[in-house]
């Protein structure tokens, strides 16, 4: 009996906490509650049950909690809302409805693997394609995907050498890898200095998230540093990145000509604030595409003006955004706030989902209009060929780029633009800048050959 009181107190407190939390959730993120109450009436045909035997299942690894949540949430919203609007507007992909299930990873690799295992067998044909949304998780899942025969789309992240489909048949880093992004940035720095040779003697600092994600560009930057004789300062920031004083004190001391910021989540906004603290000019800081979105610059407010980042896709709205607003938000089925539709990371998630949907559509042209397996979808991704006309038909004009993948090239596009924060919004500050494939190709070759050798794979699968 001694603990009876305690037990009762606990039983009371749990629902109280739940209620408190629920209210908070309504305030910050009006979605979840509307979804639960209205879904029965409005969501018919939009939110399809995972067990539906006529639907194509797409697993969603997302992170809406933890230090990466400010960035993870818009990506997840963009991704899932595109899937929902395909169901709502088009009635699915050629009539095959999409079902999806989210799994919270918290951007942690171990939890991502658990989510992968949890979701890979769901739906009538299993998971069609995984988007790990984390480079660390991509490394881990890359080892598992070939066994389970499920492809990975790692749009703008993951292993840079995985664009070589001969060695990595299941990985698709479409629209750019970190080596591509780093090369675009160096090329841009060359452009504004009147040629890459003028980088000689310059000092470029890389402030990076100390994880596979942050370390990924280092080989390329080191190679470029030796080609053009600039000095590369490597300043790691430990996860989650709220403590980076020492990196910025180093920057104040060394006064590099440029700072490249390879951060994610709270690390980015902290970096901009620290840069302000040491009075490092923001217009000399260049971010990776994961460090160039609203949540990164808004906390720093006016201090972030002039900061630029390489961009896969910027903010703004295309036709499909209007569809999302009318089909989902007007019906109370949105996952986030209305204003969030069309932000940078929302569009990243949307673009990612569009690639998934088009891959499935391509695969359907060969295997028929029914739920497909991961192996069949893999064929669809590898044979993806999106033209400007297709993009227009999808209502994504200007927000998706023509891409044509092949066995030997799983990346498809090696060019990007830079965009600049003007205090209100992101706007493109340069034209398309291409990465130099003469530099990238040999690195991809040697890195993927090493991987193939260690894993005992045949590296010439594309030759046949």
């Amino acid at each position: 009996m001694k603990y009876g009181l305690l037990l009762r107190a606990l039983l009371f407190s749990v629902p109280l906490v739940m209620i408190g939390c629920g209210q908070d959730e309504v305030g910050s993120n009006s979605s979840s509650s509307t979804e639960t109450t209205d879904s029965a009436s409005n969501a018919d045909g939009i939110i399809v049950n995972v067990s539906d035997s006529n639907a194509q299942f797409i697993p969603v690894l997302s992170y809406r909690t933890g230090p990466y949540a400010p960035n993870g949430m818009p990506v997840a919203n963009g991704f899932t809302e595109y899937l929902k609007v395909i169901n709502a507007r088009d009635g699915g992909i050629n009539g095959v409805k999409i079902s999806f299930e989210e799994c919270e990873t918290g951007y942690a690799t171990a939890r991502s693997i658990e989510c992968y295992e949890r979701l890979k067998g769901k739906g009538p044909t299993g998971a069609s394609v995984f988007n790990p949304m984390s480079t660390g998780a991509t490394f881990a899942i890359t080892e598992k995907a070939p066994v389970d025969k499920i492809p990975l789309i790692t749009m703008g992240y993951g292993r840079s050498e995985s664009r070589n489909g001969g060695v990595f048949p299941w990985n698709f880093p479409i629209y750019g890898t970190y080596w591509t992004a780093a090369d675009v940035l160096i090329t841009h720095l060359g452009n504004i200095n009147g040629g890459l040779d003028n980088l000689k003697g310059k000092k470029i600092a890389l402030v990076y998230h100390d994880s596979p994600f942050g370390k990924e560009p280092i080989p390329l930057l080191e190679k470029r540093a030796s080609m053009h004789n600039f000095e590369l300062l490597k300043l790691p920031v430990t996860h989650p990145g709220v403590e980076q004083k020492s990196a910025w004190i180093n920057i104040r001391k060394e006064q590099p000509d440029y700072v490249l910021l390879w951060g994610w989540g709270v690390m980015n906004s902290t970096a901009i604030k620290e840069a302000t603290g040491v009075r490092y000019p923001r217009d000399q800081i260049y971010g990776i595409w994961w460090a160039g979105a609203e949540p990164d610059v808004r906390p720093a407010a006016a201090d972030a003006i002039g900061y630029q980042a390489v961009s896969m896709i910027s903010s703004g709205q295309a036709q499909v955004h209007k569809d999302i607003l009318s089909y989902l938000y007007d019906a109370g089925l949105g996952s986030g706030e209305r204003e969030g539709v069309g932000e940078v990371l929302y569009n990243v998630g949307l673009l990612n989902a569009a690639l998934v949907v088009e891959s499935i559509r391509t695969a359907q042209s060969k295997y028929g209009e029914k739920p497909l397996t991961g192996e069949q979808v893999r064929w669809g991704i590898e044979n993806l060929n999106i033209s400007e006309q297709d993009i227009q038909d999808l209502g994504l004009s200007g927000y998706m780029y023509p891409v044509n993948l092949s066995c030997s090239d799983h990346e498809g596009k090696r060019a990007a633009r830079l965009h600049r924060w003007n205090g209100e919004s992101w706007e493109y500050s340069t034209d398309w800048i291409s990465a130099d494939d003469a530099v990238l190709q040999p690195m991809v070759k040697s890195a993927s050959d090493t991987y193939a050798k260690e894993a005992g794979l045949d590296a010439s699968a594309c030759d046949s």
Partner: protein
Amino acid sequence: MFYREAGQFKTSYKADQAVFPIFQDRVFVAIWLLIGFVVVPMLANEYVFRAIFIPVIIMALAAIGLNLLVGYCGQVSLGSGAFMAVGAYAAYNFMIRIPELNPLICFLLGGLSATVVGVIFGIPSLRIKGFYLAVATLALQFFTDWTFSRIDWFTNYTPSGSIAVQPVAVWGFIFDSPIRKYFLCLTVLLIFTIIAKNLVRGRIGRAWMATRDMDVAAEIIGIRPIYAKLSAFAVSSFFIGVAGALWAFVHLGSWEPLAFDINLSFSILFMVIIGGLGSIVGGMLGATFITLLPLFLNQLPIWLGINMSTAMVSHLEYMIFGALIIFFLAVEPLGLARIWQITKEKLRLWPFPH
């Protein structure tokens, strides 16, 4: 009624010194072994193996290892994540640098490397005690974090610092399917549990416990503290090192230094505390509790058919998990193992308690 040992006479020294002197315990352990080796493999699916059994078994091994140090010898350590990292990276380096070596030997060598590190970092325990020792072992945690992310040699110069390994192959037998991995881990756990159980029953274990209960008294009755403490560090880090190698090679398959960060050290210590200090079964119960409960809480709303956003589920998971930890510690500060013991005592009198 169930645990009545009346009529079970010990007629030899052998019977008196048996690991499980009571018949019912022997039956019970046999049932558990039967469940582990026969029933589970027949029933479990891939997800259950990969996401539940394999991590729980490996963590149980680590928790038993830490329990030898914290629970039996009384030396608080926050360096378990570091020992696991040493085990994993050492096994990896032995494997790629001497490819002829049997992977299982590499795991043991990984454990031995952790032993060496453990003994070195155990030396301060001769002078500092309690919380101060915990802080000293924390230094080891940061030291290994730094070492494995900064010294490229340990990661074989992989550009991103992430290591990927192939499935473990022993004499041509590849441990690639979940069920094979499960058997590998379960066998290792069984062997190490037998070793641990016998260690703590013998001279060494008694020396540890004497040191734990009162080190001055232990010294007076002839136990050398340097020997007792360092042997506890050595054995404990060996266990944890092997667990680290299994965690990396069998469970993760690809890992980065972040996989062995301070959070892992904390969760192993929590497993030991919640499971029960100074108890082998406590390590297993604690590992099960800490590993499984979050997954269970996370999936509960889906099973119940409650439509909730993943963020909400995740927040609830943390809150309920935290509340349950406090609840169990408030109900029984000596851990789950003690609850199990009380249950046994109750069963002994059942159905006629006093």
